[in-house]
């Protein structure tokens, strides 16, 4: 049991032989397959919004994966990381949407903006 509480060496502990342990192992597999599907669409997607959408879904799958690792290794600190991850994925999606709508707004000054361009 010490290995499960330490949180690093979890293979072979009694946790993996319980019902929740089997479900968590299945969940790690399912989420990994889902992340591969998202990654495939991230590389393939024809429009740039497709890639941004796939990246957003990939980040949510990553949140789920961290949750399962947190259950499996019995470490509570990962919950704070989940909070930060969800905030960052939302910020990334908003930034990607702004960039898709106006791609020159970041690199070039807008011609119709007042007072900023000389």
């Amino acid at each position, binding site marked *: 049991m010490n290995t499960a509480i330490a949180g690093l060496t979890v293979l072979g502990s009694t946790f993996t032989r319980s*019902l929740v342990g089997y479900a968590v192992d299945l969940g790690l597999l399912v989420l990994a397959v889902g992340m591969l599907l998202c990654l495939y669409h991230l590389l393939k997607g024809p429009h740039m*919004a497709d890639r941004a959408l796939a990246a957003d879904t990939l980040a949510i*799958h990553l949140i789920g994966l961290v949750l399962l690792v947190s*259950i499996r290794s019995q470490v509570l600190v990962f919950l704070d990381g989940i909070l930060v991850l969800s905030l960052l994925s939302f910020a990334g999606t908003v930034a990607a949407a702004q960039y898709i709508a106006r791609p020159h707004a970041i690199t070039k000054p807008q011609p119709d903006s007042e007072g900023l361009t000389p």
Partner: protein
Amino acid sequence: MTSTNTTFLDLATVFFLLTGLFFMFVGALGIVRLPDLYHRMHAATKSVTLGITGLLIAAALALSLIEGASHTAIATRVVLVILFQFIANPVGAHLLAKAAHQTGCQPWSGTLSDDFDKDRP
């Protein structure tokens, strides 16, 4: 997790875990299988939000069994993340769909009408 017998809390954890995993996988499958960006957004936003909610509830139930764990700390973080996901995912998908429609992302050939295109100045 010292006892090997299954309690009601374990069953509830497994139920929420499997439900969440099902919806997460449906969302990831829909991203690959559906025909255009707007359909994919439908799969990615709604079912993935429901799936991550199930996973978060399962994690809250499972982590509250740790000895010495503060239930308030776990519940606060889980409820915060659930609320944030329910706000952030629709807003992000809305922004992405609007940006894609502005830059001329073509809808599926079987789409019947595009009211937003007709209203465009």
